[in-house]
């Protein structure tokens, strides 16, 4: 087990280095524009210089607009993004597990068809559009049925907990429903496979009552199997997070990069992309390690 973890950590470190290298290539070498135009003037243009700045000095760039280092900008905005992600994540887990398991056990029946149909609809619509429609309908300042705080109403958790919570309800719903749409159908697929496995038949043959067969034997095997896919999908959902922040004007990392684009603050854009990607690598590493504990067979390989 420890060898497995060590190997994963080493691979992650290698990936971090390669990611920086690729971002150097994509953002500095590839564009035809000359660096001064991009506003990346102060950043050392050589490859080695670039890598040194990031790994030795944790310098992700300097924003001329805000007169701050990009890293400090990110750190300032991280709590907002985290509030959004954690809340939406919890909501999506709470939704997808029951929906995924129940639709699998009632395959083809009404609940399954409605749930999967809704999931398909949610996954097919642009998340930013959904957000705008929700605001249009429910935002307290401009909505038709003003019941929830609108965009731009985010307040920090420590500053105003009540407002923090209320302003995040709509964004959480939006993100959470989107994520749940994806996870529940993945879980459903996996669950259908698992329920056909021999250990489920064995459990029934032992006389285990059906609900326990479904949850302890079935879902118990299906849910861990979906976890590594989480690692892949998280990357995709970052996009949704960025869009949510933009729509609801939540002062997080996503909104930071959006504003940076519109103010030609290229170092911030570049630095943010790199930083978030590196963070993702670390998150996926943690997910892999957690998964190894859930499914001991993995570390055997």
């Amino acid at each position, binding site marked *: 087990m420890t060898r497995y973890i060590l190997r994963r950590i080493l691979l992650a470190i290698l990936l971090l280095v390669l990611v920086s290298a690729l971002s150097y290539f994509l953002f500095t070498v590839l564009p035809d524009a000359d660096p001064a135009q991009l506003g990346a003037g102060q950043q050392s243009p050589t490859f080695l210089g670039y890598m040194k700045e990031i790994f030795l000095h944790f310098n992700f760039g300097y924003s001329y607009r805000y007169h701050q280092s990009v890293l400090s900008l990110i750190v300032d905005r991280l709590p907002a993004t985290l509030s959004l992600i954690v809340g939406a994540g919890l909501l999506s887990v709470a939704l997808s597990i029951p929906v995924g398991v129940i639709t699998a056990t009632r395959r083809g029946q009404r609940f399954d068809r409605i749930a999967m149909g809704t999931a398909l609809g949610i996954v097919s619509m642009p998340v930013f559009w959904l957000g705008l429609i929700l605001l249009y309908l429910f935002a307290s300042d401009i909505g038709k049925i003003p019941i929830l705080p609108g965009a731009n109403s985010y307040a920090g958790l420590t500053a105003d907990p009540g407002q923090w919570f209320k302003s995040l309800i709509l964004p959480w719903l939006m993100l959470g429903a989107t994520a749940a749409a994806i996870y529940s159908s993945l879980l459903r697929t996996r669950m259908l496979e698992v329920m056909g496995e021999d*250990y489920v*038949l*064995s459990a029934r*043959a032992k*006389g*285990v009552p059906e609900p326990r067969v479904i949850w302890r034997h079935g879902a118990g*095997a299906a849910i*861990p199997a979906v976890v590594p896919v989480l690692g892949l999908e998280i990357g995709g959902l970052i996009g949704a997070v960025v869009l949510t922040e933009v729509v609801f004007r939540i002062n997080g990392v996503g909104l930071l990069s959006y504003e940076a684009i519109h103010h030609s603050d290229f170092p911030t854009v570049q630095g943010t992309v790199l930083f978030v990607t590196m963070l993702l690598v670390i998150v996926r590493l943690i997910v892999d390690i957690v998964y190894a504990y*859930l499914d001991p*067979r993995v570390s055997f390989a």
Partner: protein
Amino acid sequence: MSEPLLSVENLRVTFDTDRGVVHAVDGISYTVQPGRTLGIVGESGAGKTVSSLALLGLTPGPRSRTDGRIMFGGEDLAALDDAKLRRVRGSDIAMIVQDPQSALHPLHRVGAQLIEAIRIHRAVSASAARDRAIDLLELVGIADPHRRVDAYPHELSAGMRRRAMIAIALANGPKLLIADELTAGLEVTVQAQILALLEDLQERLELAIIFISRDLGLVSEIADEVAVMYAGRIVEQAPIERIYASPQHPYTWGLLASIPWLWRLRDDEPAPISGLPPSLIDRPSGCHFHPRCPYALDSHKRIDPRLRPVDGEDQHSVACLLDAPMRKRIWEGLRSGGTQQELRKLLDRKPGSEATPAAAPAPPAPEAGP
């Protein structure tokens, strides 16, 4: 003959699919005596597994239908609802499912799976159940049970996993054990150990066993009685010695052809059964075996044979349209070196037989020696 432990009467299992009705099990009947072993042999798709699943009401899919009677302990299992059947499963009748590779839950420890089997049926404390689990592991010959009880299935060897599954099956002292392909995929030495274990347990615990396999040779090592299944039906049924002494059905002959030590008299083995298993939706007309039978006559395409007792042997039945003397001659011919083609001609020479026109008068069949 004492009261049978299990009496299956005219069991039928069908599945409703988009492509038609699958006749997985088509009216089979057998009995199992307490403490004795019945072997069920046949190729994939013959209905062996499905018929056993039907005993416990575990046939897969909502569109399956089970008919017939399954008498066990004075009750008809086929008529019981799921709640009552659950009490039988894992306690009075235990089943070890096919493909032991994945029959143990990969994410639960072996001990936990054993304990679960115990505590579902009896109200015992967790520690008492754990003690019993360790005893069971020892009973089935797993060394170092105190450590192994906390192992995950993938940490055990294939042979040990089978033993663990036997332990789970025995957890509540069943009277009948159904072992489906228990030794498939194991090395020969391990296979022999598992079989020896089963026999030992059978003696000690007065355990009746239904042993399902594709390998007639294997089954013969443990079975007292054998039922040969083909396309959902029993085509021959007899005590094990009779199957060897005078097998009656051409399919049985084909199965026996794969047992090397039977063929000492010859330099080579007789040809195996050619062709693929028949579709269970659209079964061949008449005798379901006729497309693959080297000795089929035209009339066999129209008449469906019933399972009938063989003359003079009340425990031996067969479903075949050839008459008994002819079968005997063909079998003895096969045993002493004749090929299928040669023996086929025996049939063609019979007056009034509707053999294929190409059959010219054939040379005399080789002498059927001892």
